[in-house]
């Protein structure tokens, strides 16, 4: 197809226009027009005419976008001809330009999308490299947005996102770029030296305002909605000179803001990189630890206070990594829970503990810890049933320990699972009692077989009268509810005497037996039952790290 073409004489007057040019410009009478008036004659703006006339006078080429009256954009190229005069060619780029803008826009909120943010960030970094002006990238993530979507549906969630977007736009300056990166993730590019804003002060002021403004109650469709926002900030050039680094570092800072309670902001610090790498490397090792058989169980004796007899053991998870050595459960259990690995690891621990206990010469009980995460999959009862069938352990000897954390979310669902487990004949203990929130209501909702009193109260008994009162209250509560009570973390004879005086039924701690390998636990059960009151075991002094239970 022929290009739209207009020829000018050396003075800039139109001498020829082909049919295509006339159609494109929407003007039939082009010949005879001075170049200066051509854009205006086609509904365009005056300044473009002046720019073209200036180029003609200077005898040079020029390329510009001509905005026509009907909102079309025409790319216009002026070229001097060797024979004298000029050629003007036109190309309609309306669709191209609009398409490019749309490709950088996020349809729900009208904010720019990830591609758009990258474009702006690249441009801003190039500008900053020239001027030396600092810029900031803020990464935002809404807190509790998912529950809005889940409970009220996507139309309400979408309306909320539009309101959040509006607040972000209102809270920022015109030259800032606000982007929605997907879901409930947003980003803001704070660039340019406009207003003389200094960094990091400007970014901090904005982050603080965003936490306040976005966190205020929304009213959508008759519902009061409350979400918060966490913000991570990275600055250029201090935290990175290229777009990918800046975005990555702002993300790391956001991760930290969320880890430290949400509804807050954090600036990137170089240490976050190292910490994240350490976490990633631990995750890689953890993901293969089960397959490489790096886990083992330690067994800590539980002593009946009345008889001094070992009545059971708690199985404690240990991870021995060939290079790392023993890894603290306080380090790897939360990570395993976060990435869901705890389900497989927990099942392994349950099977290994039951198999071991099934081989003991006495019918001592075996306690195994359950993570709240294990309740979510809907397969826990089935798993326990299979393990009992495979190992042949009497269900009455298995004690599953849960913490209040398991009951915090979806209480009814968890209670249904507990009742299912109880129906198998296994016992259920409440672990770490006294450290959570609403313990008493949970005791009422489910008839636990045993309450384990958190070691912090036991340790505090000697110096702190309140701790003694709490231990006494829990022991009596247990007695009147028909639940046994185990005092955890007993380390000294004085603590043991105090525990005994308060009426606990069982005791578990370094004083009466440290966690030990399976073979040693089995051997302990082969000894004749001690009928004398519990005496301190002759064991080396305690190492605090060993008291961590898993």
């Amino acid at each position, binding site marked *: 197809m022929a290009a739209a073409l207009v020829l000018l004489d050396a003075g800039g007057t139109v001498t020829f226009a082909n049919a295509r040019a006339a159609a494109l410009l929407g003007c039939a009478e082009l010949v005879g027009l001075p170049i200066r008036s051509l854009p205006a004659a086609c509904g365009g703006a005056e300044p473009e005419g002046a720019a073209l006339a200036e180029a003609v006078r200077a005898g040079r080429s020029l390329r510009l976008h001509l905005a026509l009256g009907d909102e079309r954009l025409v790319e216009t190229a002026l070229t001097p001809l060797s024979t004298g005069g000029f050629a003007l060619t036109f190309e309609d780029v309306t669709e191209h330009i609009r398409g490019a803008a749309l490709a950088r826009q996020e349809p729900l909120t009208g904010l720019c999308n990830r591609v758009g943010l990258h474009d702006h960030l690249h441009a801003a970094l190039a500008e900053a490299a020239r001027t030396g002006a600092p810029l900031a990238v803020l990464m935002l993530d809404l807190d509790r947005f998912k529950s809005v979507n889940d409970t009220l549906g996507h139309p309400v969630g979408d309306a909320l996102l539009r309101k959040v977007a*509006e607040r972000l736009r209102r*809270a920022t300056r015109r030259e800032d770029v606000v982007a929605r990166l997907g879901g409930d993730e947003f980003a803001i590019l704070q660039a340019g030296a406009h207003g003389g804003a200094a960094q990091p002060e400007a970014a901090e002021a904005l982050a603080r*305002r965003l936490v*306040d403004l976005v966190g205020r109650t*929304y*009213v*959508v469709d008759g519902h009061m909605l409350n979400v918060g926002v966490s913000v991570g900030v990275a600055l250029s050039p201090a935290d990175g000179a290229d777009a990918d680094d800046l975005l990555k570092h702002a993300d790391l800072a956001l991760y930290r803001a969320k880890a430290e309670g949400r509804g807050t902001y954090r600036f990137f610090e170089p240490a976050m990189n190292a910490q994240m790498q350490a976490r990633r490397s631990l995750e890689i090792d953890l993901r293969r630890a089960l397959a490489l058989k790096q886990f083992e169980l330690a067994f800590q004796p539980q002593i009946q206070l009345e008889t001094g007899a070992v009545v059971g053991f708690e199985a404690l998870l240990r991870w021995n990594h060939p290079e790392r050595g023993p890894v603290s459960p306080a380090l790897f259990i939360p990570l395993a829970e976060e990435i869901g690995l705890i389900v497989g690891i927990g099942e392994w621990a349950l099977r290994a503990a039951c198999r071991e206990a099934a081989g003991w010469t006495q019918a001592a009980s075996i306690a195994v810890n359950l993570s709240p995460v294990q309740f979510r999959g809907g397969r826990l009862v089935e798993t326990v049933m299979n393990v009992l069938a495979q190992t042949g352990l009497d269900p009455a000897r298995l004690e599953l320990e849960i913490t209040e954390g398991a009951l915090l979310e979806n209480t009814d669902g968890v209670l249904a699972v507990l009742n299912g487990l109880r129906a198998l004949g296994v016992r259920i203990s409440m672990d770490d009692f006294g450290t959570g929130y609403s313990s008493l209501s949970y005791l009422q909702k489910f008839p636990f077989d045993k309450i384990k009193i958190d070691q912090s109260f036991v340790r505090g008994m000697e110096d702190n009268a309140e701790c003694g009162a709490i231990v006494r209250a829990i022991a009596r509560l247990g007695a009147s509810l028909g639940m046994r009570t185990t005092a955890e973390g007993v380390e000294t004879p004085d603590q043991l005497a105090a525990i005994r005086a308060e009426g606990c039924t069982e005791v578990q701690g370094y004083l009466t037996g440290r966690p030990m390998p399976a073979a040693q636990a089995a051997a302990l059960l082969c000894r004749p039952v001690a009928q004398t009151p519990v005496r301190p075991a002759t064991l080396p002094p305690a190492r605090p790290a060993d008291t961590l239970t898993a």
Partner: protein
Amino acid sequence: MSRDLCRLVYYSRNRVAGAPTAMDETIRGILAVSRVNNARVGVTGALMFNAGCFAQVLEGPSEAVETTFERIQQDERHGEVSLLALEPVEERLFTDWSMAYVGASQADAARYGDMAGESGFDLSRMTGDKLCAVLHGLALEEEAAAAA
């Protein structure tokens, strides 16, 4: 119109700083803008203000009340906004004016002090409806005083 009528009551912390006259000017500015905006979309109500807080009732079509409240939420001249009530109502308590400013006079300041005392100086303890009723009484008195 009355089919989709709702009432929203909130209170918030006043962040307007400065001398009493400057503060008064700012508050009157807020009021003037609100009167115009709210009359256009059929929202009525009462705004109560003192140096410590704003308390406001908004009544009107649900969508207009939501839009108005969203604009208020974006205003950084106040903060710590507590939404006390959001409910459908049969009829308006505040019908004849777009917004009523209460709290300019010494008499109102004294009255406001009583209310704070009644609730143990803790506005958040008041239920939305109680606040609404108190606001209404004050607004009516203000109107009566203006008419006299």
